[in-house]
């Protein structure tokens, strides 16, 4: 049964409201801090124009640092959660406020400041009674720019700080339009609201503005309090991606099947592994063959109750192609069962982390397995290989390319980087490519959209899931799943190796037991 957006938002109302408040709080608090810092700085450089170039230059450079890079610096220093998020937002809001304060004050007619001095005002009185009131519309325009930037930026930079970004990014990952809109609509309204309120204040004529100006810090302060910094002083802290949080075969399963009750923050995939390495969080939701697992010395916990469906990789080929070139199937199956989880992790590590070329990694692996064969010289017929846009897929298609070129007379064309599942799959069904590596779990959930009942029935059993997708793909799409390569790139919970060993945690059940035994009342 299809749910409408309204129903979704209604159902999620408490959480949505909470996240909107959090978002407002994040924005206001960072804005308040940046005004507190940027206003005096702007005034200072207006008085000492020699310092202006340096200060504006530094603020300008801060502005150009991409958010993920900035968070990369901040996480080791400040951990995860509200503090690095507010710090990042604060840094981004500095430039517009400093620049507009400087421009506003230096833009006051010198004849007017001179007459203020001439009447006997001291430096402070000239500043507070003449320069700031006259520069106020310009300063406010700066604050307005900063506010709108911050609403937008607060959305992108979700590092366990909450905010509407959790909905939006969860929605994007889960391909759930309602979820995206449920986050995006309030965010857009929030940005508009900030802009409208501040532009209204800005348009008040200057004398009324003077009287209204004190209201702004007051509002900011009040709104900031809407955001209560989540406590992270627990013994164990989990950081999960927004996608994972929303899935039955993710966080929901962890709580219902394992009764795992662990303090949790939502965090972006991009910084999650590093945050675990930096000991800012202890448990993360990763992919079991991710190269960063090796890079950061993390271990996966065994899914002993089987909530994560298997994601065994295998080539999916058009039936028509297998009929035309019967030599393709045995050639591709040369790789079957050859790569287990730790080998795939190692290969991914070499590509993603050591920046080796996928082609080189593929060649060296085949060589070590004794599968690399020199190319046959005469070429006849052509086969097109596709891949999604991440390292593991690149490695796999390069292996298939080398194998096909070595064992068959076919010429091979690569069409790598076809984005996500949908693009790859559509390309295959429309005959634009002939095969690509797919995962059984993706086939089951994303492509076949198996019902909950079907999922329950299949369970975590690798063979049953494989048999099911193979049968359904053949029937519905005339596509053939060949033998699995061996590894399972499924969701997995991960911990630092040292911590897992110290606490004797090997399975998710171990973790659940450990957490409930050491549960600390907040």
């Amino acid at each position, binding site marked *: 049964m299809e749910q409408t957006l309204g129903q979704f938002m209604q159902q999620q109302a408490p959480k949505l409201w909470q996240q909107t408040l959090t978002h407002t709080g994040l924005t206001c608090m960072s804005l308040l801090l940046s005004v507190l810092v940027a206003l005096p700085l702007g005034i200072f450089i207006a008085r000492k124009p020699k310092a202006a170039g340096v200060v504006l230059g530094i603020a300008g450079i801060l502005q150009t640092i991409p958010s993920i890079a900035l968070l990369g610096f901040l996480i080791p220093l400040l951990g995860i959660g509200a503090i690095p998020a507010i710090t990042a937002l604060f840094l981004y809001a500095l430039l517009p406020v400093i620049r507009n304060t400087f421009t506003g004050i230096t833009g006051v007619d010198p*004849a*007017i400041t*001179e*007459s*203020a*001095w*001439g*009447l*006997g*005002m*001291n430096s402070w*009185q000239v500043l507070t*009674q*003449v320069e700031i*009131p*006259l520069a106020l519309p310009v300063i406010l325009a700066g604050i307005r720019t900063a506010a709108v930037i911050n609403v937008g930026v607060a959305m992108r930079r979700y590092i366990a700080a909450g905010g509407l970004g959790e909905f939006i990014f969860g929605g994007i990952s889960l391909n759930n339009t309602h979820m995206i809109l449920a986050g995006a609509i309030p965010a857009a309204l929030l940005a508009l609201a900030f802009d409208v309120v501040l532009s209204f204040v800005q348009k008040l004529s*200057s*004398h009324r503005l*003077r009287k209204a100006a004190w209201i702004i810090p007051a509002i900011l302060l009040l709104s900031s309090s809407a955001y209560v910094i989540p406590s992270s002083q627990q013994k164990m802290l989990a950081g999960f991606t927004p996608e994972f949080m929303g899935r039955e075969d993710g966080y929901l399963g962890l709580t219902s099947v394992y009764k795992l009750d662990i303090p949790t923050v939502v965090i972006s995939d991009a910084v999650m592994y590093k945050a675990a390495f930096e000991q800012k969080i202890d448990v993360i939701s990763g992919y079991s063959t991710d190269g960063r697992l090796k890079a950061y010395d993390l271990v996966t916990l065994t899914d002993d109750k089987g909530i994560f469906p298997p994601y065994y990789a295998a080539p999916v080929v058009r039936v028509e192609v297998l009929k035309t070139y019967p030599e393709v199937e045995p050639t591709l199956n040369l790789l079957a069962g050859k790569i287990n989880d730790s080998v795939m992790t190692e290969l991914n590590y070499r590509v993603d982390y050591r920046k080796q070329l996928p082609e080189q990694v593929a060649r060296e692996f085949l060589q070590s397995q004794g599968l690399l064969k020199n190319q046959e010289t005469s070429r006849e017929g052509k086969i097109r290989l596709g891949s999604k846009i991440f390292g593991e897929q690149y490695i796999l298609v390069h292996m298939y390319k080398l194998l096909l070129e070595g064992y068959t007379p076919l010429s091979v064309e690569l069409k790598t980087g076809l984005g996500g599942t949908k693009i790859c799959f559509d390309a295959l069904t429309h005959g634009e490519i002939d095969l690509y590596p797919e995962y059984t779990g993706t086939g089951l959930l994303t492509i076949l959209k198996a019902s909950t009942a079907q999922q329950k029935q299949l369970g975590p059993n690798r063979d049953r899931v494989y048999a099911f997708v193979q049968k359904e793909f053949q029937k519905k799409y005339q596509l053939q799943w060949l033998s699995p390569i061996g590894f399972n790139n499924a969701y997995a919970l991960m911990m630092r190796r040292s911590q897992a060993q110290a606490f004797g945690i090997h399975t998710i059940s171990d973790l659940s037991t450990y957490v409930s035994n050491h549960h600390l009342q907040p």
Partner: protein
Amino acid sequence: MIVAERLTKAFDGLKAVDNVSFEVKEGQTMILLGTSGCGKTTTLKMLNRLIESDSGRVWIQGKDIFSTKPEELRRNMGYVSQNNGLFPHLTVAENIAVVPGLLKWEKSKTRQRTESLLDQLNLPYRSYAHKYPDELSGGQKQRVALARALVSDPPLLLMDEPFGALDPLTRSAIHQEFRELPELQRKTVVMVTHDMAEAFELGDQIALMHQGTIRQLGTPEELMFRPASNFVKDFFQHQRYQLELKALKLKEIWPFLSDSQELITPTLQSEQSLWEAMEWLAEKKPAVVKNELTNSLKTLSLPILQTAYQQYKDQF
């Protein structure tokens, strides 16, 4: 009242004001006159330390200006800056209340004083106090700036080209008011202008400045009829006739006028300038002038005035 001694100021090695000395007596108006860049504004601003002099000394009412903090010094003298310098974010009343605010006056006292000043300046409190400078005409703004400078009743008033932005008609009207304002009668005023006619209309003393030095300091009459150098003479050349009429007072040509026989009320005073007499005579004729000191009366018409003026000039 105010004594300046060997004031000197250089900007980037160029002397803007070079060894300038003068004295202004209590209740007198001294004009610093000259073309742009002659150092007149710099000289004025050194008196209230908006510009700090490189060397030289200034005493105001016998007190060295460097012995008090600049802010306190300035609060005790009125200042009207170029182009009025009104604060655009404050109302007329608030602009005027700036100095009382700095001096921590009671609200009621400020209000009373503001009302009386605005009334004197023909800006009724009721209709103008709550207007913003943007809503006023040029002449009205100028009067508010004047009120703001006068509000604390300082003995000394410094004015930097106060009427520079006004059109000629408004300017001569405001000159009239300026001369007649009772509030201003007792004040010592130092005013900067580049307008010769204005200098001659308003000044008791005129310091003609050029390239940072005072070329001649004297009464308008002295500048006209006893120029210290050819420079001074040439400076006024192309407006000479008008300036002479403005510089000369009726009492100066008294010996060349004939006694009045008619027993009618006098319409002009001997302290008025020939220029004012001509303005009067152009409309009404003839006129009778009274000399307060000698209590004598003289008859005046345009031809009589012309003849007497020529006879006066023939003396030099």
